[in-house]
């Protein structure tokens, strides 16, 4: 059974810009720390963003959870923590179940490799053996509806086509937890419906979907439960309708039950 538990997760995200990427400059400017604001501070030569603050939540099997919030609210960062890419600075995390993350349209694709090569490579990245992927490849190819394009380098694909390929790969390999960032919505309506059907059948097998978006319409369609995030903290959580209603007003709820 898929299951996610986060307890007091905080993540301090160092941002390296031109100056702090240089060894020479870092040595010259060592020890000049300035603190500016609550979410963004300076640690030596580089800027630190408090990307997540004390995030606690629990997601059980069969749930479809939406993350809503403005740009920079911490949605994508939280997805990366759930995917195991970022290790939190403090707090505990437990993710039971095989995770498949659609965080970026490319999914670590090799732009010069063909669609078929990418099915193999990305399947390998997700922990499958070459034999397992070869067995699944025809069904993935069929779901993408890309036909002969799969023999061409991914570089030649439109964003909608890359999206289809990424979605087909990420979902065909039967993950137990599917994490998606909002770019999935870049595809046409017909494919979107097809994608939803697949996600529906997937969630009905008691798996988990976590979708990040700042579009209330999409979240209302896809999710049964929402987490509203702002500046790296959870502002509100609950049923989709009630969170959306509050979100539209732009005001955080007065008292959030703990």
């Amino acid at each position, binding site marked *: 059974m898929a299951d996610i538990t986060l*307890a007091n997760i905080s993540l301090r995200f160092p941002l390296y810009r031109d100056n702090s990427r240089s060894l020479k400059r870092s040595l010259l400017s060592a020890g000049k720390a300035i603190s500016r604001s609550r979410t963004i501070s300076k640690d030596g030569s580089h800027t630190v963003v408090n990307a997540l603050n004390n995030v606690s939540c629990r997601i059980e099997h069969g749930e479809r959870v939406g993350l809503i919030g403005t740009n920079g609210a911490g949605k994508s960062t939280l997805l990366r923590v759930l995917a195991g*890419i970022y290790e939190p600075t403090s707090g505990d995390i437990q993710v039971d179940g095989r995770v498949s993350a659609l965080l970026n349209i*490319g999914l670590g694709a090799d732009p010069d490799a063909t669609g078929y090569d990418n099915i193999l490579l990305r399947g390998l990245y997700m922990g499958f053996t070459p034999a397992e992927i070869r067995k699944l490849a025809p069904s993935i190819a069929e779901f993408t509806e890309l036909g002969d394009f799969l023999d061409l380098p991914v570089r030649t694909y439109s964003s909608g086509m890359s999206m289809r390929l990424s979605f087909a790969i990420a979902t065909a390999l039967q993950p137990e937890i599917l994490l998606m960032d909002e770019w999935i919505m870049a595809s046409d309506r017909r494919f979107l419906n097809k994608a939803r059907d697949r996600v529906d059948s997937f969630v009905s097998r008691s798996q988990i979907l976590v979708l990040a978006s700042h579009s209330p319409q999409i979240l209302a369609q896809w999710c049964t439960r929402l987490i509203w995030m702002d500046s790296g903290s959870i502002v509100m959580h609950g049923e989709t309708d009630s969170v959306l209603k509050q979100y539209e007003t732009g005001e955080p709820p007065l008292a959030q039950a703990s």
Partner: protein
Amino acid sequence: MSVNLALTTDNTVARLAPRPSQTQLALDDLTTGIKSWWLWSTMAWQDIRLRYKGSMLGPFWLTISMGIMVTALGVLYSAIWKHDITDFLPYLAIGLLFWNLISSLISDGTQAFIKAEGILLQVKMPVTIHAMRSVVRNLIVFLHNCVVGAAVLLFFSVPQSLYSLVSLIGLVLILLNGFWFTMLVGMMCTRFRDIGPIVASLTQIVFFLTPIIWMPNSLGNKLWVMYLNPAYAFLEIARGPLLGHSIPLPVWAMAFGVTILGFLVTFVFFARFRARLPFWV
């Protein structure tokens, strides 16, 4: 059901197992990474396939260019240094063969994680995989280039014996050191982007300071200086046995010393900074 979503903190903490130590996580990364041989070997082959896509000869292009370089330099330098070409050309060919492996391990090593950015930020995967991919890719190119080495040894009928197999120890040492170098310096280069070019110019200098296009006996009684050069140690253990040279003890000591020290330093560094790598790319 809405209670499911956010339990109070106390309940959740009680249920979670303690996080393993950074040392344990680093060890897990190394062991699962090395065990996933099908992953890094496929990635390495894919790199080769893509790099030489559209060229009929594939990686043998490199072999041909190396063959041309060996012939041209061999003829020229044997005349300049007034060495017998039957001695000098095999020496140069085998030396360049292993030096090309060393220098491409170094230059690919500095780029290993920077180039893996797309994967590092999308998929959870042991960091070790990216280092293995780089090392194996260079091993594959090296094996293609071996054709030149073998052809030269045959052409000049350099005598071989069982002792020649000691050269394989040299090869293994070079690969092992390529691995820790990629892990250590590759991560540093990801954090500080100006280290890569520095390493590249140092590599160039080491090439001239190491007896590859010149012979160590030109140093006369100052040969001991070369015992302080780690690049000479690795190169000589790989090259010497194929040419019938015996390997002096200080050379062995240097090679094994650098290998052991390199792995120790790398492990400490890796355990400390492993989790930061996704923030660095």
